[in-house]
Structures are given as structure tokens and as C-alpha cells.
């Protein structure tokens, strides 16, 4: 058998269940690789070596006792550091929560544990999930395992890099405007942002509450189906989670889709897109056509991307998204006050307002401060109608565009990112250039829809290209089946980076 590190989460689960390998062996192999490679990749904020091995041994004992192991029995996974866990710290990669120890565990993580998973640790991210490169982490940037001079994307960059570099079998991330799908594309892994309400947000530190959703980052589509099936479902502790049956994502993955119709949103194939990425996605569309699918052009007019004479990009969807996300962020982050938990200024002050204002100024990073300030501005008296209320109206127009597109087709196929992974420092000078990373991903958060990012091969310079499959609300089953069709027909599956000394054959 090849190394346990080469197995997908599903393969590893089956190997553990059949006794071919123990969970303790697998966990030790991952911990060893983390020790060797994570000083370079910096995917983890915290590693739970002792607790992980204890959990692995419990699973191995359950197996010897003939007890059932669960859908993820013994499989070592990682979790983005904005999901609360009663073990260790929950930092959101922010100085304001650097020492915060959550008193409870997020529902999605609890469900992984309930399915027998071993949690290896917490993954680095852009501070409070605000960013597209993981350079906004207050601790250190994460590196792309394909080229450590490049970013892994963000904000779930630590989770994506950990999966890509083989530092966990799969991971959870969160996606507010592309934060699962964009890093998945940059690191050559699979990422699913489920429908809003499909996965409980209880215990997910809130950024944009009407947009945030937890989802998996994995080696292949089958693992995404496996993890989504485990974390999905209604939770009385999150009033926005829906009472709706969970489809059998994994069990139906290989069922053929009768008369599948795939739409290509013409607005997403403009000059803003790297031609190499456009060609890769058109190639995938051709593959689907050869497999019997119909390919049609559709339109998402309010997600259109305009390029002016100077090459500047603009889009209604980007403007709408950032107004909504920043407004929600400014409200959600009001809770960090230096009183209940988190950083408090060491300055002695007799004034409670000064205590709030100094604590927040000292411990929020520049991007978080900018978003809170902008959100406060757009919600303030006199500007509310011009910005926030206007954005909510445009949000409806964006959703109507998707509704109309899905009258003409079953799923959309489109890019995830305008380019492949960029270099560290390349986009940090101007916040707007970083926001434009999300031009193809954020519309569907505004509409609440599911989106899957899967690898579409490598660019000429050897960096992964991602493509996105988008479906109507609660169509995860279809989206995953289309992803599986592309994966099987194209033969692009489980891309492996070659960072120094990263050979998984040990």
C-alpha cells in the first residue's frame, strides 16, 4: 500500500474500518508531516497533537471492540480558526482573540467529532475572514504549497494549503464571498460553499451573517460529498438553518444526470479573465458536451464585469457585496469591546468609551478597521438609503438574474478567479485590487446559492486553475454530481504540489 498520506478521506476511513491501517498510525503520519512542513507552509495556528492521538486511540479501541466508527471514523481533519472549539484557542487570526478559549464547540465541528473524526488543529485565515490571500492574518501569512512565493488565497487559505500540502485529509473552511472556493482554486483542491442555511453557523464567528456558510475543502469531489453529508442539517441553535432533509450526496454521486443542461454566464468570460483560465473552462464544457450534456449561453447582467480604458474592473455585484458585507461586519464586530473577552488596552482609563476605542484600535488589523469604518459609514444617518438600502435592492436584482438563468439550465459553469495565485505582497497596497479577487464568487453568496470549486488542471507556469459549478438553492446533490462527471471525464483529480521535501512517499 502507498503512504496513508496519499489516501483521500473516504479511502482512509475505509482503510481504518477494514483494519488495513489504524487511526493512530494515520494521525501520527499527519502530525509528523505537519512538524516537517508547516514551518514553511504555516497552514496551522494551533495543532492538537495530544488530543488528536487520544481520539485516534479511542477510534482504534472501538474498532477492536467491534463498535461502529462513524462516517469519518479515525480520519484526521483540520478546522478553520473561526469555528469555536472547547479545546485550544479560537483566534480568527486576530490579535483581539489571540488568547480566547471558547467555552463551547461549533455545531459543524461537533458533527465531525460525532462522526468519529480526529481534529488535528485550527487553520490560519485572513483576520475575521476578511481577505483573499491570508496575508491579513495577524500572526503570519500562509504560503501556497505549489509555490511558496505565492499566496494560497483566502480567507480559508490555511485550510486549503493544509489539504493541498497533505497536512490533513480534509478541512472545514467558511465562505462569505468566495473564501472556500478561491483558495481551493489557488491550491488545486476541491471546495464547496453550501446553500445558505444548509449548514449550521452556530459557533462560527460571525462576519457577514446573511452571507457566511461553512463548507469542506477536500482532495476530490467524493470527499466533499462525504463531509457535506456529515455537517449539513437543521440546528435549533441557528435560526437560519433550514428544516429540510439532507440528500445522500455520496451515495448518488455516480448516478448519471439525464439531459443535463449547463449554462455558461457570458459576463464571466470577458477581458477581465485570464485567457488560459477561460480556455480550461471551455475545455471542461466541451468534455461535458461530449458526455451528452447540452451547453447554452446564459446571462447574469448585474454580475457583469466592466473594464475601463485604464484596465480598471468594476461590477455591480462587487459594489453590492462589499456594502452588505461591511455593514454586517460593523454590527457583528461591535461585540469586541475589551470587556467580555478578548484584548483590553493596558492603558489605564477612567472612561468606558476610551476603553472600547483603544482596545479595538490596538487589536484590530488595518483591513478589519477599514471594513468596520466603511460599514459604519454606509449604515449611518443620511447615507443608509444611498448605500445600504440601495445595495439590498441590487441584491434582489442579482438573485433574479440567477433565477432567470436557472430557467434555462440546470447548473452554471464558470471561473472561480480572474487569475491563478498571485505573489505575496502583490495586492496588499490597494484594498480595492484585493476585493476584485472575488468578482466570480461573491454573487452567489448574495443569492444564497451553492457553489463548487474543482481543479481544471495547471497553467503553463504550473499553478492550479479552478472552475466553479453553481446550482439553484439546495441543489448540492446535482452540483456534486456534475463536479464528479467533470473530474472523471477530464482525469484531473488529486493534484499534488511539489514543495521542497513534500514527497508523500515516506
Amino acid at each position, binding site marked *: 500500500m502507498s503512504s496513508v498520506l496519499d489516501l483521500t478521506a473516504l479511502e482512509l476511513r475505509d482503510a481504518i474500518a477494514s483494519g488495513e491501517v489504524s487511526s493512530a498510525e494515520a494521525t501520527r503520519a499527519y502530525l509528523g508531516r505537519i512538524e516537517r512542513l508547516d514551518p514553511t507552509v504555516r497552514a496551522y495556528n494551533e495543532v492538537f497533537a495530544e488530543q488528536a492521538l487520544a481520539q485516534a486511540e479511542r477510534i482504534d479501541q472501538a474498532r477492536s471492540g467491534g463498535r461502529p466508527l462513524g462516517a469519518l471514523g479515525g480520519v484526521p481533519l483540520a478546522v478553520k480558526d473561526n469555528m469555536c472549539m472547547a479545546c485550544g484557542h479560537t483566534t480568527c487570526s486576530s490579535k483581539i482573540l489571540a488568547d*480566547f*478559549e471558547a*467555552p*463551547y464547540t461549533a455545531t459543524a465541528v461537533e458533527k465531525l467529532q460525532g462522526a468519529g473524526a480526529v481534529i488535528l488543529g485550527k487553520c490560519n485565515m485572513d483576520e475575521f475572514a476578511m481577505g483573499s490571500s491570508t496575508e491579513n492574518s495577524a500572526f503570519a501569512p500562509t504560503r501556497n504549497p505549489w509555490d511558496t512565493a505565492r499566496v494560497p488565497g483566502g480567507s480559508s487559505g490555511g485550510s486549503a494549503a493544509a489539504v493541498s500540502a497533505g497536512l490533513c485529509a480534509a478541512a472545514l473552511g467558511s465562505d462569505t464571498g468566495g473564501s472556500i472556493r478561491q483558495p481551493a482554486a489557488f491550491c488545486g483542491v476541491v471546495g464547496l460553499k453550501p446553500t445558505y*442555511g444548509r449548514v449550521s453557523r452556530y459557533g462560527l464567528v460571525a462576519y457577514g451573517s*446573511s452571507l457566511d456558510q461553512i463548507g469542506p475543502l477536500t482532495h476530490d469531489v467524493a470527499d466533499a460529498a462525504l463531509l457535506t453529508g456529515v455537517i449539513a442539517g437543521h440546528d*435549533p441553535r441557528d*435560526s*437560519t438553518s*433550514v428544516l429540510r432533509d439532507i440528500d445522500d450526496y455520496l451515495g448518488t454521486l455516480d448516478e448519471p444526470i439525464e439531459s443535463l443542461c449547463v449554462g455558461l454566464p457570458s459576463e464571466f468570460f470577458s477581458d477581465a479573465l485570464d485567457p488560459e483560465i477561460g480556455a480550461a473552462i471551455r475545455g471542461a464544457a466541451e468534455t461535458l458536451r461530449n458526455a451528452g450534456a447540452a451547453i447554452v449561453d446564459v446571462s447574469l447582467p*448585474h454580475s457583469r464585469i466592466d473594464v475601463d480604458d485604464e484596465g480598471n474592473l*468594476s461590477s*455591480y455585484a*462587487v*459594489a*453590492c457585496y*462589499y456594502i452588505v458585507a461591511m455593514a454586517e461586519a*460593523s454590527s457583528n464586530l*461591535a461585540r469586541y*469591546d475589551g*470587556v*467580555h*473577552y478578548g*484584548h*483590553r488596552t493596558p492603558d489605564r*482609563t*477612567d*472612561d*468606558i*468609551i476610551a*476603553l472600547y*476605542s*483603544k482596545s*479595538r484600535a490596538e487589536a*484590530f488589523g488595518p483591513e478589519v478597521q*477599514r471594513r*468596520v*469604518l*466603511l460599514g*459604519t*459609514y454606509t449604515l*449611518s444617518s443620511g447615507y443608509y438609503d*444611498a*448605500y445600504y*438600502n*440601495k445595495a*439590498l*435592492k*441590487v*441584491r*434582489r*436584482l442579482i*438573485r433574479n438574474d440567477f433565477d432567470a438563468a436557472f430557467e434555462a439550465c440546470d447548473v452554471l459553469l464558470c471561473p472561480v478567479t480572474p487569475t491563478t495565485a498571485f505573489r505575496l505582497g502583490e495586492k496588499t497596497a490597494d*484594498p*480595492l485590487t484585493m*476585493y476584485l479577487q472575488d468578482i466570480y464568487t461573491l454573487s452567489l453568496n*448574495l*443569492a*444564497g*446559492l451553492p457553489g463548487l470549486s474543482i481543479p481544471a488542471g495547471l497553467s503553463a507556469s504550473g499553478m492550479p486553475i479552478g472552475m466553479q459549478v453553481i446550482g439553484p438553492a439546495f441543489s448540492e446533490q446535482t452540483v456534486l454530481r456534475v463536479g464528479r462527471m467533470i473530474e472523471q471525464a477530464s482525469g484531473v483529480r488529486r493534484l499534488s504540489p511539489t514543495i521542497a521535501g513534500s514527497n508523500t512517499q515516506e
Partner: protein
Amino acid sequence: MQNPIDPDLVRHIGVLSRIELRDEQVDVLARQMGSIIGYFDKLQELDTDSVEPLAHAADVFNVLADDTPGPSLEPDRALANAPARDGDFFKVPKVIGDSS
């Protein structure tokens, strides 16, 4: 186009946001926020007079929990991360002014 955000407005938003801004931050923020707000103004191109706002994509409204008592965080757990505490209370500087 004139920047809609001047340094005084940045300072005012800083007060509303409860973030103490240093003087050297204010000019940079005025420029950055001005260019981002300028970008937001693109939405004014769209006629939305007859469009209903959409605050939330989920069709879930007013979910009520049963009014039954259940376990909740004990004071020691709730206060475990407090920067300063006094018994079972969060400790803060004086909030209410002297009545004299």
C-alpha cells in the same frame, strides 16, 4: 471626482465605530475609503425604484424557540475570558457620571 470622505469625516466615523484613530492613519484612510465609496457609487447607475430590498437570501422568518428553561453557561465559564472581573461581574471603568 472630489473625495466624499475628508479627514474630519474619518475622525467622526472613528468615534461612531469606537476605534481610536491615530493622526497618521486619518489621511490614508480618507484616501482609501474615498476610492472604495467611489466604487460603491457605481450602484447609482441602476434604477431600483420599483425593486424590493433583499436583506436575506433564506426564506426563514421569525423562528421562535420554545420558552422552556435549559442549561446555560455557568458564571465561571462565561467569565473565564474576561480581561477583568470582580466576583461574578465583568469589571469596567465607571459608566455613569457623578450625580453632583
